[in-house]
């Protein structure tokens, strides 16, 4: 038995089987959630590569699987990533019971997670670009709903993510497969440029992020939230894998400075644009851009502290995106659209949904007592000592997003009018309470809850400064 067979092939087969089930909507969500939970549990308990004795039974899960001459390797260092990936799958598919996106969401979502795991595990890693593209292609039926024409967001999502692939393949060749002199600074600059451009497309770095607010506006928020939660984080893991595997890039300051600059640009421009949004789904999109900007900023610090904060921010980000997506999907199901005039007095009409959205947005921006406060505070406090001039742009971004959030908060608590209270499902309320409580507890005891997340970094052993 091999690890890729368990965490890549098995979920793909399950996803295909789920796709074939017709008419049993609830069953698909339950099965998807159960399969994801089972895979996350296996990743937690199975030591990959070691012999396990269960009574008379001896099992060894080998880390690699060879397909057409290429290896897929999932070793012990990848365990935390697997737990995180399929744990996220569990929460999203279970949350689907409340939000009720189209049933193809479960099968496509599960297949997407498995393909992204394949992208992380493939060796040589330049093949990951091809697998990411396949993952993107299979998500198209999930984000584009039948009965209405495809929006501009879907088109741009497809175009930008497809354009990223060739650059990464060419960069991989220039760095690894060309056999050229890697001491040549021109080659390094060319390769770094290709790599940077490829990841800029894949990570929706400024100015290629226009698809994110469009997708947030056009697509069911629960589905777009799943894409926003899964795709950038997995692509960042692949970026770290690139940095981990290529000493020439890892030791160069150029690419880290570029990453940091991209992060700051995303935070600043995302925040400024966020301030002018009248649709809360678009604000959600811009907040996701700012969050990805913070990830790039942390990695670009080229320090252990930056990497630790990158790892710490992953779990809060997933909970925040989950809460906002769930809240927005409940609102859109009850009210029809997410324009600000339609959200008046949301706290009175749908208190749990409004609370989920507000808590998620506040935590993302780093309001005290919520999950990301201490993380962002320490990250920025550390950085501002070294470069106070650059930090101002980050504060401008945060300020812009705060302006937008407070404006929507004013709408939420505004004039009640004659709006009646809308009932919210019990499961939805429970999930929202768990999510908000998690954000508060992480905010109060960040090290206690997030220290384990640094285990993710064991997958990238060469990234030590």
């Amino acid at each position, binding site marked *: 038995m091999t690890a890729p067979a368990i965490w890549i092939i098995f979920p793909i087969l399950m996803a295909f089987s789920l796709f074939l089930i017709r008419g049993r909507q609830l069953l698909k969500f339950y099965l998807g959630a159960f399969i994801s939970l089972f895979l996350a549990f296996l990743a937690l308990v199975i030591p990959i590569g070691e012999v396990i004795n269960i009574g008379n039974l001896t099992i060894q899960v080998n880390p690699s699987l060879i*397909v*057409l*001459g*290429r290896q897929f390797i999932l070793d012990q260092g990848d365990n935390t990533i697997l737990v995180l990936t399929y744990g996220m799958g569990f929460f999203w598919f279970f949350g689907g019971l409340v939000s009720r996106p*189209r049933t193809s969401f479960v099968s496509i979502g599960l297949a997407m997670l498995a393909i992204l795991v394949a992208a992380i595990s493939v060796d040589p890693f330049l*093949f990951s670009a*091809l*697998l990411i*593209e*396949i993952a993107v*292609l*299979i998500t*198209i*039926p999930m984000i*584009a*709903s*039948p*009965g*209405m*024409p*495809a929006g*501009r967001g*879907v*088109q741009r999502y*497809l*175009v930008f993510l*497809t*354009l990223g*692939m*060739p650059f990464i*393949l*060419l960069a991989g*060749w220039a760095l690894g*497969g*060309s056999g050229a002199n890697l001491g040549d600074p021109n080659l390094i600059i060319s390769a770094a440029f290709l790599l940077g451009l490829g990841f800029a497309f894949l990570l929706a770095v400024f100015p290629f992020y226009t698809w994110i607010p469009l997708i947030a506006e056009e697509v069911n928020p629960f589905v777009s939230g799943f894409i926003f939660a899964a795709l950038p984080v997995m692509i960042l893991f692949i970026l770290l894998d690139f940095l981990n595997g290529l000493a020439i890039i890892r030791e160069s300051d150029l690419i880290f400075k570029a990453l940091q600059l991209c992060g700051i640009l995303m935070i600043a421009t995302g925040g400024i644009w966020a301030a002018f949004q009248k649709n809360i789904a678009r604000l959600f999109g811009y907040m996701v851009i700012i969050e990805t900007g913070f990830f790039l900023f942390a990695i670009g610090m080229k320090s252990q502290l930056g990497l630790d904060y990158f790892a710490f921010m992953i779990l809060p980000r997933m909970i925040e995106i989950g809460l906002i997506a769930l809240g927005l999907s409940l609102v859109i199901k009850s009210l029809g659209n997410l324009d600000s005039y339609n959200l008046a007095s949301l706290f009175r009409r749908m208190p749990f949904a409004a609370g989920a959205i507000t808590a998620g947005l506040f935590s993302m921006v780093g309001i005290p007592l919520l999950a990301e406060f201490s993380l962002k505070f320490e990250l920025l406090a550390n950085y501002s000592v070294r470069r106070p001039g650059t930090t101002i742009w980050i504060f401008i971004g945060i300020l812009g997003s705060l302006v937008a959030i407070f404006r929507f908060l004013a709408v939420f608590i505004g004039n009640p009018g004659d709006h009646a209270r809308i009932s919210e499902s019990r499961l939805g309320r429970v999930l929202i309470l768990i999510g908000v409580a998690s954000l508060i507890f992480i905010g109060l005891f960040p090290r206690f809850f997030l220290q384990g997340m640094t285990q993710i970094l064991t997958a990238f052993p060469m990234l030590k400064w």
Partner: protein
Amino acid sequence: MGDPAACVVDILSPDRVTAVTTGLLPYFSLFLILVATLELLVGSNSKRMMASLAVLYLGLFLLVINYWSFGLSAVKLVAGWMALAILTASQGGGEVNQNPLNRQGVLFRIIAALVIWLLVFLIAPSLSFLTTLPLPVTWSGLILIGMGLLQLGMTTQTIKVIIGLLTVLAGFEVFYASIESSVLVAGLLAMITIGLAAAGAYLITLPTMDESL
């Protein structure tokens, strides 16, 4: 003056055929690609556009065959034509554009294409030097990428966006085929080509699909 023996060599000798193949085939491919990409840019009749896409993939096949075995190169041709078949199935067969381009629109696109060609012919020698690829192959790859990007920048019609992406991808494959001959890469790229067409066909047929699906 050359070798006198060459004057009496049989015109159909293997050496001669190889020389003609390696010498003229890339130019022939370049011609096919120029014609096909121009028609894809200015055309609005779906049948002619699909025929142009077929010609484009034939040109790609004729370029790739210089680096890959016949079987592996045929994968590109088959994948391209399968993508074309998928896109064709999603089309009604009439005009792609509800509002066909007027003469000024066509002229503007032709001028834009000429600018791209000019840029490609200027850039190609330095890139050809870097990649050690023959000049006509570099021309072909760059023209595919340039015309594909031009297509992507000039339209919001799903079918044309997908054709633009397929064109850019074909251009990239021209370069990548010369440096990577892995079966897995060929398979995955073929899968992506077909997948793009399938995604495009899905997006094109979305408005007419049953909402309960």
